[in-house]
């Protein structure tokens, strides 16, 4: 049975047990139909031209993994920002772990989507926001059909959340192959501020395929800082579908650090519905072996007087492959848009590949849009300069990588996270430098 067929029949099996009210149930029915018609994306689709899911779809995934004993905090401590106090929403094989989590309902809601979907008091929020910015592409629809669990974060207006929120999805490798479909809903009220870190971590070498959907709603003047840490095992793959809806004068920054994993596809979509929004999309990708990372971004400028800034840096070693497909769409009414996109890549080895494709579609006539894309090797003159000062080749290369990635690292606003990212980069390139950039 193909994975598609397996999913369709699994849906029929669970449908009767869903404790949804009827609108949600209808939504799921519609979503699974949409997935049935569209199926998994193939390379024939323009936006999937360079990323094939074929090899991933051949595995026999468990859709509803069995539960394993709880994991000990000491075994997973290193995946948390353990040196500072944070809220934590932790899932193990798709199921909430109250033991590892630290949630709250005091002034703000940092809790579970499952309870938000089922409890009447959350109904108005769910009705107003759930699946309202997510689009009907096949993978998002698939997630919507099965969506049971994930993070539910609701920040009331004027609330400045004093500590970052970590969303961590562990998979234990309890079964040979597992498919997970977490669903996060984040609503940030007017003038509220929040920092969120999302991580997916496999704890074994068994295959994991994650198809996650995250919806982020930024109300008027909301300020959202979102960090995605993708440093998973070589047997773990993820398709991350993130949708950001922005009301006027809101500010949303998403940083994506892609260092690990087998196949990673980031569908990051921003919709600027209000005027004077600011959207920032930044990423550092450092790959080796046969890793594959595909950044597929969209900034949809719908309202006038908004800004968007994209800055993606990629360093590709061995036979790794990268894709950057950055689409900026400026509607006719989105006058005075200021859209900037930059994508720089370094290929360390001859077998490494990057496919970069900026797409600017501009229907307004008074806008400022710019994009720049570079693909190169290490600058030999710069390497010689550093080495002539006594810095060994490997360290000199590392220094140049840090320098190259610096414009992204420097905008990380949580110092402990910044230090962690620096360390991850240092580990990834196998050196330690005596300073933080």
């Amino acid at each position: 049975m193909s994975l598609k067929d397996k999913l369709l029949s699994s849906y029929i099996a669970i449908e009767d047990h869903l404790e949804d009210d009827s609108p949600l149930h209808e939504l799921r029915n519609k979503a699974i139909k949409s997935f049935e018609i569209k199926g998994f994306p193939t390379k024939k689709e323009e936006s999937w031209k360079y990323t094939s899911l074929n090899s991933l779809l051949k595995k026999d995934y468990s859709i509803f993994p069995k539960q394993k004993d709880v994991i000990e905090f000491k075994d997973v401590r290193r995946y948390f920002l353990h040196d500072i106090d944070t809220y934590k929403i932790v899932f193990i094989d798709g199921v909430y772990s109250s033991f590892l989590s630290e949630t709250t309902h005091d002034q703000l809601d940092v809790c579970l989507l499952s309870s938000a979907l089922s409890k009447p008091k959350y109904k108005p929020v769910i009705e107003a926001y759930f699946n309202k910015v997510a689009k009907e592409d096949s993978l998002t629809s698939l997630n919507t059909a099965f969506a049971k669990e994930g993070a539910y974060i609701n920040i009331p207006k004027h609330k400045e959340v004093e500590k970052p929120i970590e969303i961590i999805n562990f998979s234990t490798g309890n079964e040979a192959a597992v498919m997970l479909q977490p669903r996060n809903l984040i609503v940030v009220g007017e003038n509220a501020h929040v920092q969120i870190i999302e991580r997916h971590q496999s704890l074994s070498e068994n295959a994991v395929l994650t198809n996650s959907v995250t919806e982020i709603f930024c109300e008027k003047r909301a300020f959202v800082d979102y960090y995605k840490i993708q440093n998973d095992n070589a047997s773990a793959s993820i398709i991350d579908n993130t949708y950001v809806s922005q009301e006027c004068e809101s500010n949303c920054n998403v940083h994506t650090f892609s260092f690990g994993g087998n196949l990673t596809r980031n569908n990051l979509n921003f919709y600027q519905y209000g005027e004077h929004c600011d959207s920032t999309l930044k990423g550092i990708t450092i790959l080796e072996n046969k890793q594959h990372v595909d950044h597929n971004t969209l900034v949809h400028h719908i309202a006038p007087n908004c800004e968007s800034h994209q800055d993606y840096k990629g360093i590709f070693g061995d036979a790794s492959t990268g894709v950057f497909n950055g689409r900026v769409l400026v509607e006719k009414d989105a006058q005075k848009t200021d859209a900037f996109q930059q994508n720089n890549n370094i290929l360390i080895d001859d077998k490494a590949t990057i496919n970069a494709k900026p797409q600017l579609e501009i229907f307004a006539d008074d806008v400022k849009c710019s994009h720049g894309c570079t693909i190169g090797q290490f600058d030999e003159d710069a390497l010689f300069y550093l080495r002539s000062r006594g810095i060994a080749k490997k360290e000199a290369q590392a220094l140049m990588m840090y320098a190259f990635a610096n414009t992204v690292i420097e905008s990380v606003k949580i110092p402990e996270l910044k230090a962690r990212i620096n360390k991850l980069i240092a580990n990834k390139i196998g050196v330690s430098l005596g300073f933080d950039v």
Partner: protein
Amino acid sequence: MLHIKDLHASVEDKDILKGVNLDVKPGEVHAIMGPNGSGKSTLASVISGKEEFEITKGEISFEGEDISELDPEERAHKGVFLSFQYPIEIPGVSVTNFIKTAINENRKAKGQEDMPASEMLKLIKEKADMLEIDRKFLSRSLNEGFSGGEKKRNEIFQMAMLEPKLAILDETDSGLDIDALKIVANGVNKLKNKDNAVILITHYQRLLDYIVPDFVHVLMDGKIVKSGPKELAYELEEKGYDWIKEEVKA
């Protein structure tokens, strides 16, 4: 200290150095002059170990050891320093972090511990003051947006920090106004002692008014064709290089 014998070097099969002989002893200052394209910068790069140049013949030894096969960093660890004609911009790495890394990498190569932070700071301040470098300058990205003069002063700052045995200054005077030239020259003179040596590569005699050479060599078409005392520099300034060409032919 530095002994170069019949050195031939090429880049992409093009011969650039065609039999250079040069002996530099501790305490000496040598000036290498010559017209554009004569191979001056190539000689500097070959001594420092730039990989794009291939040594096809001859030898380079430093303190009695053949260094022609060593990596650039290994030569640096032995005490060879090159002040670049065109220092490279490295955005995102501050001058301070860069020099810290360089110092500690050199110490690591010698089996020493990292320099304690307080000592490093003191040293940086002392050397920056000597070269009249503004402290703010030290936290800027290496060479990024620096003026020509700032870049050259930064090169000498690195030299002051690393205290090499042999410093090769490749056109350090170009792009410097007279005040900056004096500061740089003064810095080099302060660093000079009986145990280290300097090779000045320059087009003009101007620098040699401030850093007085013991020997002046003329490099033409990949060879040192004439050597003499410091007065030779004045002669070159006055008469150009054509008379040497004639002399070589004769």
